[in-house]
């Protein structure tokens, strides 16, 4: 009698253990898959942001023909380009901005009476979005629609001002929807 009770208990313990194994396996597998999907999505977004940034910087459509190394945008090309044109090159689902960064310390080298106007002009030009109408008195080029939640990546570039024949420092920023 005692022996059969012990055998039943052993079986019960065995069954519980097997169920436990199955349960743990299912929980771990689901948890693992869930975590993996989230991480993969985040990595894929990062990869895409970097790829778009690199493609933009190297694009022959925006870079002057004489600058093979890339990241040397010509202002006339930036002004002429549209979101549609660039979507044909880089696909859709991104936002980009090229912003001229004026060297404001230059104004400090001018006579005192000219400094204030110089700084004002630089600030104004830096904050005007370029269109075909106001070119070249502007310093920002934006392409495609900006979404509320995006991840942004920026790199320094140059902007060649064709009319003045000068080279300014610029910042290229690319945004990719963060999907959250």
């Amino acid at each position: 009698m005692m022996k059969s009770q012990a055998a039943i208990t052993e079986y019960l313990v065995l069954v519980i253990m097997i169920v436990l194994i199955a349960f743990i396996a299912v929980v771990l597998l689901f948890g693992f898959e869930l975590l993996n999907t989230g991480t993969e999505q985040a990595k894929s977004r990062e990869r895409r942001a970097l790829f778009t940034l690199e493609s933009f910087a190297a694009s022959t459509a925006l870079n002057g023909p004489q600058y093979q190394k890339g990241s040397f945008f010509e202002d006339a090309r930036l002004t002429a380009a549209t979101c549609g044109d660039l979507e044909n090159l880089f696909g859709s689902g991104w936002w980009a901005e090229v912003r001229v960064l004026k060297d404001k310390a230059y104004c400090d080298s001018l006579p005192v009476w000219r400094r204030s106007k110089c700084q004002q002009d630089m600030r104004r030009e830096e904050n005007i979005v370029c269109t075909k109408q106001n070119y070249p008195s502007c310093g920002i080029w934006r392409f495609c629609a900006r979404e509320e939640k995006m991840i942004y990546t920026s790199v320094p570039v140059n902007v060649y001002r064709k009319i003045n024949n000068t080279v300014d420092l610029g910042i290229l920023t690319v945004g990719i929807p963060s999907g959250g």
Partner: protein
Amino acid sequence: MEGQTSMIAIAIAIVMLIFIAIFLLSSSLGSQTSQTLKAEYRNLYAHNALLSVLRTETECGTMSDVMKAAYFGGGKCDSRKFLDSRMPGFMQDMLNATGHTDFDWFIEASPQNFEGVSLSLGNPAVKDAKEKWDARTLINWEGYQLEAKLYLMTKV
């Protein structure tokens, strides 16, 4: 029977260990991919930062010309003074505009095919930092070559 129970207990332990190992391995692989992407971005950033700064025009010529003049002489301005006074603000504006206010920098121009001392700008501690990344390019002047290097690191 007791033997079977022990076997099952061991099996549970093995299954658990296998799952934990897979989980840890995949997490470490995932973090390696992220590190690779981060390194790729930092490399692109440093390269673009160095080239963009050197190609930018100032009232004394391009920064690259100013650097040449500071080393070999000549130029439109007092080049050494110009670099010392303007480069820090110039670099800081660029780092701020790209959202990297936490970066520190150091630029060094050293002779390649002739003897001479190096010209340096920025925080020299960046060059000796353990966690840093860099970009380099050559500046040519009448057969002489200067290697310009930009070192970046995250401020501690």
